[in-house]
């Protein structure tokens, strides 16, 4: 098993190197001049030149690249000019925020989408099947910032049930001691139910927003895959043997239908993690998506490179995890296969 994991990592190395080179070059060809932007409102060409020199941007590209790679080797992702912090600190702070939100959104989504998909497949053409279609279509066609704003409007502004959309914690709570960076987990470790509840109540609206958006692919994939499995021979055999419908569906059919669902989950998760910029903007969430966008607007190279690299590594890990899950779910699939 370990050897297989090692092998997978080895195959990922070229793609990571590729990502490093491509992002480095791409950020350099972006329109916009970092030095001019950060020289401030009162820049003279000379002041801009001075800043360019301080930032090392006056050096030839290969030299900049070598320096960048050397720094990477030391775990130094460079410094963000927009936040003024080392990129690695920023990412370490923001990635858990995004991951916590995305994971919770995904869990909510799975809890709704998977049963819905199964029901829709079992009672194909019924009312619930149509309902499932409507929910999925609506969820995917409403832009996330719209759903987010509507939820804020209804649950915060009108009803007042939800706390102010001010990021991860209400201002009168302090952050729990850092262990995992996930506030829900950290507050539990610290034995602080108050903070746990505060963090959870801040999380619910954005997580639901994400969940609504990701319902569609999961529901549709579950339904399609269940339909295929339900019409296969072994299900007919199970039914003919007089097994209870519940047993047939949950134990036999669903387990076999899980593979494509897990693949979709992996894709949805990685997609959400990078693409929930809009949700982060609406809920003032200090996540990694909005971080990258802000950096992009300011032509701030280091955070963009750091972001892309982090994402690339995450994708590699995620794919590896999913591949291993395959093996666990279905013994016919093995890593070497």
């Amino acid at each position: 098993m370990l050897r297989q994991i090692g092998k997978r990592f080895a195959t990922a190395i070229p793609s990571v190197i590729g990502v490093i080179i491509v992002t480095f070059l791409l950020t350099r060809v972006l329109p916009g001049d970092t030095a001019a932007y950060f020289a401030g409102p009162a820049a003279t060409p000379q002041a801009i030149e001075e800043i360019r020199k301080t930032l090392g941007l006056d050096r030839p590209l290969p030299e900049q690249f070598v320096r960048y790679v050397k720094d990477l080797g030391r775990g130094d992702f460079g410094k963000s000019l927009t936040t003024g912090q080392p990129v690695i600190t920023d990412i370490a702070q923001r990635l858990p925020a995004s991951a916590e939100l995305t994971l919770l959104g995904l869990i909510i989504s799975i809890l709704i989408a998977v049963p819905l998909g199964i029901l829709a497949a079992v009672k194909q053409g019924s009312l619930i099947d149509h309902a499932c279609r409507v929910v999925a279509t609506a969820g995917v066609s409403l832009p996330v910032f719209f759903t987010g704003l509507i939820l804020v409007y209804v649950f915060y502004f009108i009803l007042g049930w939800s706390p102010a959309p001010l990021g991860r914690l209400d201002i009168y709570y302090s952050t729990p001691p850092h262990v995992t960076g996930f506030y829900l987990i950290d507050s539990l470790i610290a034995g602080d139910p108050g903070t746990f509840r505060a963090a959870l109540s801040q999380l619910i609206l954005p997580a639901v927003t994400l969940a609504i958006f990701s319902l569609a692919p999961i529901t549709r994939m579950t339904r399609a895959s269940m339909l295929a499995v339900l019409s296969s021979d072994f299900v007919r055999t199970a039914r003919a043997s007089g097994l209870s419908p519940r047993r047939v569906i949950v134990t036999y059919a669903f387990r076999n239908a899980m593979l494509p669902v897990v693949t979709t989950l992996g894709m949805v998760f990685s997609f959400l993690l990078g693409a929930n910029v809009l949700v982060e903007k609406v809920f003032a969430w200090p996540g990694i998506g909005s971080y990258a966008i802000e950096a992009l607007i300011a032509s701030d190279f280091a955070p963009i490179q750091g972001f892309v690299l982090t994402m690339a590594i995450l994708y590699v890990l995620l794919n590896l995890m999913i591949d291993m899950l395959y093996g666990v779910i279905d013994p016919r699939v093995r890593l070497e296969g």
Partner: protein
Amino acid sequence: MNRREFLKSTTAIAATSAVSAPAILSSASAQARNETLLVIREEGPNNFDIHGVGTNRPGYEVSWNCYDRLMSHGVKKTADGGETYDRDTFTPELAEEWTKGDMSMTFKLRKNATFHDGTPITAKDVKWSFDRAVTVGGFPTFQMKAGSLEKPEQFVAVDDYTFRVDFIRKDHLTVPDLAVVVPGVYHSELVKKNATEKDPWGLEYTKTNTPGGGAYKVTRFQAGTEVVYERHDNWKSGKLPAIKRIIWRVVPSAGNRRALIERGDADLSFDMPNKDFAELKQAGKLQMVSSPVGNAMWYLGMNCKNPPFNNVKVRQAVAYAIPYEKIMDAVMYGVANPLYGAKSNTVSNVSWPQPHGYSADIAKAKALLAEAGMSNGFETTLSFNLGEAVISEPLCILVQESLAQIGIKATINKITGANFRNELLKKELPMIVNVFGGWLDYPEYFFFWCYHGQNAVFNTMSYQDKAMDALIDGARKAAAEGDRAAYEKDVKGFIDKAFAEVPRIPLVQPYLNVAMQKNVAGYRYWFHRQLDYRTLTKA
């Protein structure tokens, strides 16, 4: 783990997480609320130190509140009962008193003032801080230069509590320039201790630390999320502020900032979009304060270097083809001062910005264009900064529509914030919509940067005219020598000339909008357009 166990465990996790139904509750202790002020804004600081490389505007706010200057400005009432800084009076801050000689100015420092850590503030710190401002380059050095503060030799620590500034030339702007954000006083020993060989002025350290003696110090910071300040309880350079703790939360979405202030969860929303401001003002549930931004304007600039805008008739034609009223209503929502529609292009006073004599008149515009020999119109581009799109974009669309009526076909060119300044520096864009404001609220200051033949980046039109330069230089000289009559003559002269030749068409003077709960008082408008926490109170 085998697959059976795995499947069982996932079902178990799913089951438990479904049970823990969330209790959506917003709880906050009432006591903390009275000593704490929650401020919301679109952006947060990227650097606490205005001397740093690329410090953004929110960073100026941190500098302003965490460091003291020698002098500050007095206060005056505005027409609507609000308060604004008074450009013409200077009040003691770190310096108790001063005497201004012909070629120097001597300050007596407070003997009881200390930095946040308790170390006494001495003239040595002032000298070091000023040396730093004129040496590090970039914006601080530039701003100091605007007041003829250029060399470290100009700053002398006479003894521990006496500090002298020597003038290299007579300049009317030297005194005001000593009261802007840049010449703050830093804890020199503490910064030096944290400096490195590569960074002798400790700019890295001050990026996220506030080693000063100002009324507030930053105690918690999360980039892009929040800044938390505590009061410097031993502050002597002014009346001790009422608010003990300031929490500044960054809320990027304008809709949510509005919801937060309307629901009463935030105390103060700074720099609101005009639309929200106009609507909330009408609703009347909050205190809404809006102040005209001094020495600032939205304008349309035309490149005087290249055809067709090197022809003054063409520029005048454009000035008659701008839909001023529509811009005021549909873009600014009425929250701005009109800079158009005066009786004539000859001014009677030296206030700036003030309205010019152009107004929307398509027939006149067509006639002028015909005089210029371009009755068939021409094609050009109209550029704006995407970073200011809320105002620029609708404004450009209105202008585009209007120009089409006189045959000028303008294509709109959107430029990202990072690239805009670079494009300005090249001075090739034929037509731009932009906003500019100067800290020091004097017409000759504005004209020196925006119309003078030195062709600074703000002279976005590349306008060059010897007679104009003579008027601007004349006004600067007259101001330094205190010759009021000559000053007024030159100022009126350069304003008249700027209106007659219209390299830039002033459109409107923007406002700085603030919404506060009814129990918040003491808000004051400042030239730097950032929030001063020191005068704020909360009932």
